[in-house]
């Protein structure tokens, strides 16, 4: 539990650092997905992991194999078919979890899987881990 709290604090701190310049210099763009608010979103999404250090280990392995994906702006739209920021606007995790669940099951059904050191994961699972590793 302590680890989780400290993780959330770190996330909030990082996200705050991202958001401060955006707020000062271009407040109108806060709602635009293209600004680094995706880091904040990534932090929120990564909260699905109760032990984020494990997700980070796997995420780092994934990014070692696919370094071109080491960007929250790249990963988020590829994990979610619709816009997760919409779902997170009111701080609700439930719709987000449902969306992740559907995406993972869909990956398995369509055999969209990849191996990390031999372990077979769905692509969505690995990208979620990659997000956790980036925040």
């Amino acid at each position, binding site marked *: 539990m302590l680890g989780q709290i400290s993780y959330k604090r770190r996330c909030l701190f990082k996200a705050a650092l991202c958001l401060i310049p955006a707020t000062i210099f271009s407040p109108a763009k806060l709602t635009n997905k293209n600004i680094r608010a995706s880091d904040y979103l990534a932090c929120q999404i990564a909260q699905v*992991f109760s032990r984020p250090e494990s997700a980070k280990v*796997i995420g780092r392995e994934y990014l070692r194999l696919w370094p071109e994906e080491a960007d929250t702006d790249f990963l988020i739209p590829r994990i979610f078919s619709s816009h997760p920021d919409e779902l997170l606007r009111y701080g609700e995790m439930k719709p987000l979890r449902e969306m992740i*669940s559907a995406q993972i099951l869909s990956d398995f059904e369509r055999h969209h*899987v990849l191996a990390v*050191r*031999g372990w*077979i*994961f769905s692509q969505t699972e690995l990208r979620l*881990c990659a997000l956790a590793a980036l925040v």
Partner: protein
Amino acid sequence: MFVDSRNIPTGHNVQCDICVIGAGAAGISFAREFIGKSVNVCLMESGGLQSDADTQYLCDGENTGLPYPPLVATRLRFFGGTTNHWAGYSRPYSNWDFQKRAWITDSGWPISRSELDPYYDRAIEMLGFPKEYWDLKFLEAKLGESRLPLTEFVTNVHLVKPVRMGQTFRAAIEKSDNVSTYLYANVINLEVDEFAKVITAVRIATLSGNHFSVSAKYFVLAAGGIENPRILLLSNSVQKEGLGNQKGLVGRYFTDRPEFLSGVISPSRKDLPLKIYGGTQHPVTIGQTQIVSLFFLSEESQRKRESVASCIRLVAKPVESHSESVWDKLSRHVNRVTDDLSHITTPQDQRINYVRQPIDHIEVHLGLEPVPNPESRVTLSNEVDRLGLRRVRVNWQLSELELKSARETMEILGAEVARANIGRLKSLLHSADNGWPETFKGVSHHLGTTRMADDPTRGVVDTNCKVHEISNLYIAGSSVFPAAGLGTTTLMIIALAIRLADHIKGSL
């Protein structure tokens, strides 16, 4: 009747109607069909009634291909042959195994699977298998468990009963008046007429030094997938390239079925219904028959991916067998992450607690159908055995298609077991550097070296198992299999031997 060939004087000639070379699964099954008939059959066996080192060492040879167990250990040279260490796995070949598939060169059989139905029935009766146990629905009801819900795989039941044919059928053969078994009789040459079209006699030698010959109307070579081509290649006094080998096909298309530890499943729950799969700590048996079911990649999936047939055998390992070497450093993190994500994907009311007792892990053993490959072959080496005969050189090769199919099968299995919340798969094929993992091996079934084909340019024997080029020489055993498929070998050897016996009965 059993005869000790070491007591036969040199120069003696034995005469009979049918001379069978080799008293293993094929030879015994064939000879048994003639017990009590008015036909004299001589069954020539290289060894005695028990294993002895000197005779066994005649099996040795060299390997220049894929990793392979020592040839001296992969077959047995005494009465009963290799059934003396047969594991006993049995399941008839499927129609699919017999079909020509456009993406697999030289695939398919020149006879239909249904043509073998009556012979399979007789083989099954001979071995005493309860036929209904192959029916999955029957088994599910009997064991009170259902198959695992993997949609891309079909669950196929195998019955396991290692019948030692030398022991089981010894009394019947020994008592027979018309089947004579010559023990310690090593075939050193098939003698032919001047055109190499008719076998006139078989030259026999014992390790004691005496020589004699056997004359017959028909000869049946039933010495196994390695010795059959060896004997043909060694019999080169008239036809220099060896008998039946004008097209250079004897010894080609040698293959074995790869079957090896290819992954490990970290199970998601303790109550996985693995009884049908035989994957529990203790073998699941009904009476004397052990039950082991395998996942076969569906025909549709093979067609879609243009892959070879593959199958998966699960072996659950209990907690006591846990060894650190099974898991790598990543496994702890994988379990944590997948626990988290499965809690998202599984509704609260359907969730099963994660208790990894009593199963610690499940081994995944992958079996593959090898592609018929003319470059994979048995030839003669330059070394000679104690009888002065050249030993064999085995060069087993596989193609890229088997490796691609293996990797795809593991990916599909990984997705399927995760989707069905059975567990998470670590694939050894994906840990290896684009090649076969260190665990790679075959099952020591020697297939294809005198393959069956309608066309003499494509095979050594015809659909009746007669050597194309020779009028009175037939071949029994796995060397005639034109495609390995995923059915089990011994049951097919027996079915084909019974079929051959019927054919020759009709010719006498």
